[in-house]
């Protein structure tokens, strides 16, 4: 399977519920009626595209009808595809510049979204690219979180820095960054405990980890990735906003896209946040992580069977 096919397979559920629904819809109507537009809106909303982004797309469609760009139901899908394409591709994010090693990555997110698993996958990705990877078990809160990361370390041939359960996560991060410098490691990936974005004290803890790292390595963390579960609905936007207030996020990893039919949240994230989706998770295996490419995503979303 080529890369595009793999991506398509991962997005199969989303594509099915999205494109196929639109196609079926269009067949059912001879002319453009209010009811058709309502149904189209329903498809968008039920794919977790969200109210603000859906409203924006529907406004564009309505003005497309007025300006005669859309003349029949058949015009709807290509028009929408183009608008979503523009939405996904309009923002350009600066390429991550090459930093002197160690490059420090901080992984944050709410409970159970897939932080630790994603770290395993990222470690594998960089390991295969010939990098020396060190992972830091700074989730000292959840029972056996350290053991879980350790298993991923073994699976991917990464070094690990860990302290006892219940110890200060900032101290783990500090040790990890120091060790990385001493051992000439290329990439440090720091796992953190899941936390709800509404808990002020836990957000302070993240800031502290951030400060400690920055003291050791200037400009670090170079990458702060927010892990979002694709099954999450509109709360994903809240998560991104509040985590972003605590630490400077550089991107999003969207996990569990293999399970949900609602990948529409990718469009919402692109439209409502100034944050690039950098990776997507499409399974629990070590290889189930893909760099996110907006153009490919858009193409896969609207691909024919």
């Amino acid at each position, binding site marked *: 399977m080529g890369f595009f096919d793999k991506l398509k397979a991962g997005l199969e559920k989303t594509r099915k519920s999205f494109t196929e629904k639109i196609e079926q819809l269009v067949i059912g109507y001879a002319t453009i009626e209010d009811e058709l537009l309502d149904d189209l809106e329903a498809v968008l909303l039920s794919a977790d595209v969200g109210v603000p982004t859906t409203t924006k797309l529907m406004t564009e469609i309505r003005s497309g009808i007025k300006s005669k760009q859309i003349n029949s139901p058949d015009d709807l899908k290509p028009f929408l595809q183009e608008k979503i394409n523009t939405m996904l591709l309009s923002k350009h994010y600066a390429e991550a510049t090459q930093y002197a090693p160690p490059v420090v990555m901080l992984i944050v997110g709410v409970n159970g979204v897939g932080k630790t698993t994603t770290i395993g996958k990222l470690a594998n990705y960089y390991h295969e690219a010939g990098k020396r990877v060190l992972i830091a078990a700074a989730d000292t809160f959840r029972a056996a979180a350290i*053991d879980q990361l350790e298993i991923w370390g073994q699976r991917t041939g990464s070094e690990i820095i860990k302290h006892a359960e219940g110890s200060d996560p900032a101290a783990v991060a500090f040790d990890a960054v120091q060790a990385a410098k001493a051992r000439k490691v290329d990439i440090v990936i720091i796992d953190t405990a899941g936390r709800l974005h509404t808990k002020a004290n836990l957000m302070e803890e993240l800031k502290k980890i951030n400060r400690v790292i920055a003291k050791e390595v200037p400009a670090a963390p170079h990458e702060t990735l927010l892990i979002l579960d694709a099954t999450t*609905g509109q*709360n*994903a936007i809240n998560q991104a906003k509040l985590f972003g207030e605590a630490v400077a996020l550089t991107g999003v990893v969207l996990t569990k896209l293999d399970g949900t039919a*609602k990948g529409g949240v990718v469009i919402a994230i692109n439209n409502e946040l100034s944050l690039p989706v950098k990776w997507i998770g499409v399974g629990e295996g070590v290889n189930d992580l893909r760099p996110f490419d907006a153009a490919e995503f858009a193409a896969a979303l609207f691909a024919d069977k």
Partner: protein
Amino acid sequence: MVFESLADKLQQTFKKLRGKGKLSESDVAEALKEVRMALLEADVNFKVVKDLVAKIKERAIGQEVLESLTPAQHVIKIVNEELTNLMGGTQSRIAIASRPPTVIMLVGLQGAGKTTTAGKLAHLLKRQGKQPLMVAADVYRPAAIKQLEVLGEQLEIPVFTMGQDNPVNIAKKAVDQALMMARDIVIIDTAGRLHINEDLMNELKSIKQTVKPHEILLVVDAMTGQDAVNVAESFNNDLGLDGIILTKLDGDARGGAALSIKAVTGLPIKFAGMGEKLDALEAFHPDRMASRILGMGDVLSLIEKAESAISLEKAQEMQKKLRKEDFTLDDFLEQIEQVRKLGPLDQILGMLPGMGKLKGLQGLDIDNKEVKHIIAIIRSMTSKERRDPAVINGSRRKRIALGSGTRVQDVNRLLKQFGEAKKMMKRLKDMQKSGKKSNFKLPFMN
């Protein structure tokens, strides 16, 4: 603002319409559009929203609302009632088997919170005098078994493990073990899985056939989006669920997923996870969830409480006084006492929409001690002083402080507060003159 509450939006919508006099059907239709959007923003399933809005419309177009002076409140009330109905009204418990052990199986998607919930549930049941055994049947996720073992140690509850053995086998042996150890509850933690993964769903079916659980509970993350309904339906079709446990409700998820699952599958929500601590599992209250989805806190139960605690006549009398501007410290005292009847102040604030989320209010402890001080201070004043605080000079202040067991600063602060309250009431009164009169007002909060 992340989410504007539906209640606020409706108020605004109707305020815009006020100038027109009576409401027309199209005014209501306009408001219902807002209702629809707000429900969708709260992740209520699309189909559920459609049905719900149709029902609400039927009721809202009735005479009652159109002729009401406070149509917004009326519509909100209807929406809230319909939501509560959908949530299933009453609280629902787990069934305890007549012949122990009661076998409970937890299932769900990856990352929903099953393992932690297993610990919390075991803890809850232990506190009710039960003797649970936890079973580590998640043999896939790295260190999942270890996680349950650690929880068992913390809670002093035994954990049955058989390494990475076959989960069906593990479940069977665990129940045998429970019988031998005379444990009366068995809680099986299973691996997270996608509802579309046939192999793994078959594994759950086999466990079910083998140990015949009395309760199969689906653990659902409160933040789940539109897919929640599909997930619950598949699990229910494959396994025949007995109920739902909702997790991560301590965040700001509006929880529309929960409502949708209940509406579509009819399954009751039995517990809600309210925090990371192992004692943070609570019985679920459908009505509170309804208000939460509306983004209006628990304002309705607050109003109910107020209505039962404060007599209408008293409130009207107070309003009259306000209008005549002869509001005294006596009245102030009476108001405080009335509000206190509603319960602890911090709880009351928690019931108000948006209050819980306000950053400034976090950690602010409106403790009753301060209120008690205020009462003591006013009680130490003569009736003349209460009517005309202007006479309270330095020596009187000292006397009052002494009499009430407070400090002069406390007396000063109270007098200042009273002065400000009076000013504010005057302003509000002026505002009310231009607006419509409402028939019931809470003292203090208007």
